[in-house]
């Protein structure tokens, strides 16, 4: 669709598992196994899934922090995966990332001001005295005092560090930000502050987000669109309200049912999904969810399902609930 800021097509990433004396690849971890989506300008698409779903790897592939095995990523018309060094560097100013772990995502040996100043100088966004001024602006934008610039990461709490991470991403004035589980490591009350901040920034600066999370309640609050991932594939994607109101794929339903609801009256009427989250080294044949699926049919283990449109921008990959019409 034109007007989409980010278009991802058939993205694949297989990590080789090396073994034997010569380190040959004996198996591969199929972390991302054919993922396609697009994000319109100003929207927030959330990638939801459990461990092994490939959502974090997808985020890193989009930014080309990891080289993909196959596929296409197009940002505002520019091919990201085949860009040369110069184009990539220019792209890096427009696409940024916020990380999950507030404790590992900041260099412990640099002050906040040092870190932001370096970014501003390397990208020639400010020089000399302007650096300090812009640093103060950025800190103010994320709700931190100017004095924070002289301090080291370990002097801040998790929530404050996450704000620093957001300031860092904003320093290059990007249009698109990938938020990789930005609030998962934070307390509920801090989580609320950071989510509000992200939404405010989106409005003020016209940002587009790719939000990666496993927490459905958080996703509900921040997203305009949601894509559910399982074992490296997208099994369902829809506008946020639709997905939560009328999920189609059995995995989405199980995920929604499994999330604990803070309401004592709502308990003990849930379907608990059996079995373990599978490993992406040896994914099941056909539909990757079929071994745990309550609605499984014989054909589910035969062929892989493709995303089928069920109306209103809602697509699901399920032979049973969203069969392909021939």
């Amino acid at each position: 669709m034109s007007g989409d800021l980010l278009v991802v097509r058939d993205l694949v990433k297989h990590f080789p598992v090396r073994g034997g004396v010569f380190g040959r690849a004996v198996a591969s971890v199929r972390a991302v196994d054919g993922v396609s989506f697009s994000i319109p300008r100003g929207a927030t698409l959330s990638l939801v899934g459990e461990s092994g779903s490939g959502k974090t790897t997808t985020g890193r592939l989009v930014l080309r922090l990891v080289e993909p095995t196959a596929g296409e990523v197009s940002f505002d018309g520019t091919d990201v995966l085949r860009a040369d060094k110069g184009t990539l560097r220019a792209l890096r100013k427009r696409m940024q990332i916020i990380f999950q772990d507030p404790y590992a995502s900041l260099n412990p040996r640099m002050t906040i001001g040092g870190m932001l100043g370096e970014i501003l100088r390397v990208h020639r966004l400010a020089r000399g005295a302007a650096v300090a001024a812009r640093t103060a602006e950025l800190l103010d934008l994320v709700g931190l005092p100017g004095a924070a610039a002289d301090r080291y990461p370990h002097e801040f709490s998790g929530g404050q560090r996450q704000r620093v991470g957001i300031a860092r991403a904003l320093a290059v004035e990007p249009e698109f930000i990938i938020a990789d589980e930005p609030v998962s490591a934070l307390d509920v009350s801090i989580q609320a502050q950071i989510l509000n901040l992200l939404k405010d920034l989106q409005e003020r600066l016209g940002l587009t987000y790719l939000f990666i999370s496993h927490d459905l309640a958080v996703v509900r609050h921040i997203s305009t669109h949601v894509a559910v991932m399982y074992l490296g594939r997208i099994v369902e994607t829809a506008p946020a309200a639709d997905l939560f109101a009328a999920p189609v794929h059995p995995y989405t339903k199980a995920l929604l049912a499994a999330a604990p609801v803070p309401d004592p009256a709502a308990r003990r009427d849930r379907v608990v999904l059996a079995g373990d989250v599978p490993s992406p080294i040896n994914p099941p044949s056909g539909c990757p969810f079929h071994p745990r699926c309550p609605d499984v049919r014989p054909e589910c283990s035969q062929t892989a399902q493709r995303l089928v449109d069920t109306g209103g921008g809602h697509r699901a990959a399920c032979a049973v609930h969203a069969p392909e019409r021939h």
Partner: protein
Amino acid sequence: MTDREQQERSAGYWRLVWRQYRRNRPALLGAALVLFFGVLSLAAPFLANDTPVWLVKGGKTYPLPNLITYADLQAENLYNNFDRWRPGPGEYALWPPVPHGPLRQDLRARLSAPGPRHWFGTDDRGRDVLSRIIWGGRISMSVGFISVGIAVLVGVILGALAGYYGGWVDAAVLRLIEIWMCVPSFFLIITVMALLDPGIMNIMVVIGLTSWPEVARLVRGEFLKQKEMDYAAAARALGLGDGRVIFRHLLPNAVSPVFVAATFGVAGAILTESGLSFLGFGVPPPTASWGEILKQSQSYVDFAWWLVLFPGIAIFLTVVAFNLVGDGLRDAMDPRLRQ
């Protein structure tokens, strides 16, 4: 942040390390000893010399004749004979605490036991042992620091590149390290020294070049760990170049174990240098070196105990001091031990 936190001064990494280090008594003792030996070595020309530190003679003032060669004093052949010169009226000489130079021979006082004139006794050429120990300390300290400096420089660069790039760079460096470590270093050093001219520069370079593999392995290991951290990915995502990421971001976080290894390395280098001098492959005579004194002592060991004891104690104390500092640093840098 509360107001109180804002008022406290920002605590960088080294300040935290020092706070933790301060608690460790043995480590503080080690640091004090290292400082002591360091000052001793630096101040050797002022501590043990046969030339006075300040001279007023014949109406003229000569500052620091121990460092500066004055033409007229040289003409009077005083520089080798200051001990025979007595100040006349109006003349004055300020002597260092040990008024003997390390090379000054006094054959009448050969092999004398420690006494009021020679506090640590004399060797077989009548040279004052205390003076030779003080000046020998210079040799030991400079060999220690410079050889470790060379090892760290080479090791850090190779280790960083191997750890960051992986692939064939890593394979090549690893093979180099493995080859280097196959050969027992001390024998390698002796062999090389036997082929080269003896001299302190050669010793330092040779010891340095045989110790870099350990540093490289440490740095490589730390780099493998650090490059997976989110802040490294963030640096790359921000478009920072490889060089900047390696040297400005990853390296400061990867060098902590290098400091510890370096302190132990200095201790090892001092021991190696003493060993080399003892075997005759070290600094050539007559330069004073602790190992060299020990070498001499072999012929007189049955009665000249001062030739064995004092250099032995000097080596022992220095090595122990550096080991204590190394242990203290390692504990102080360990984030888990922080309270």
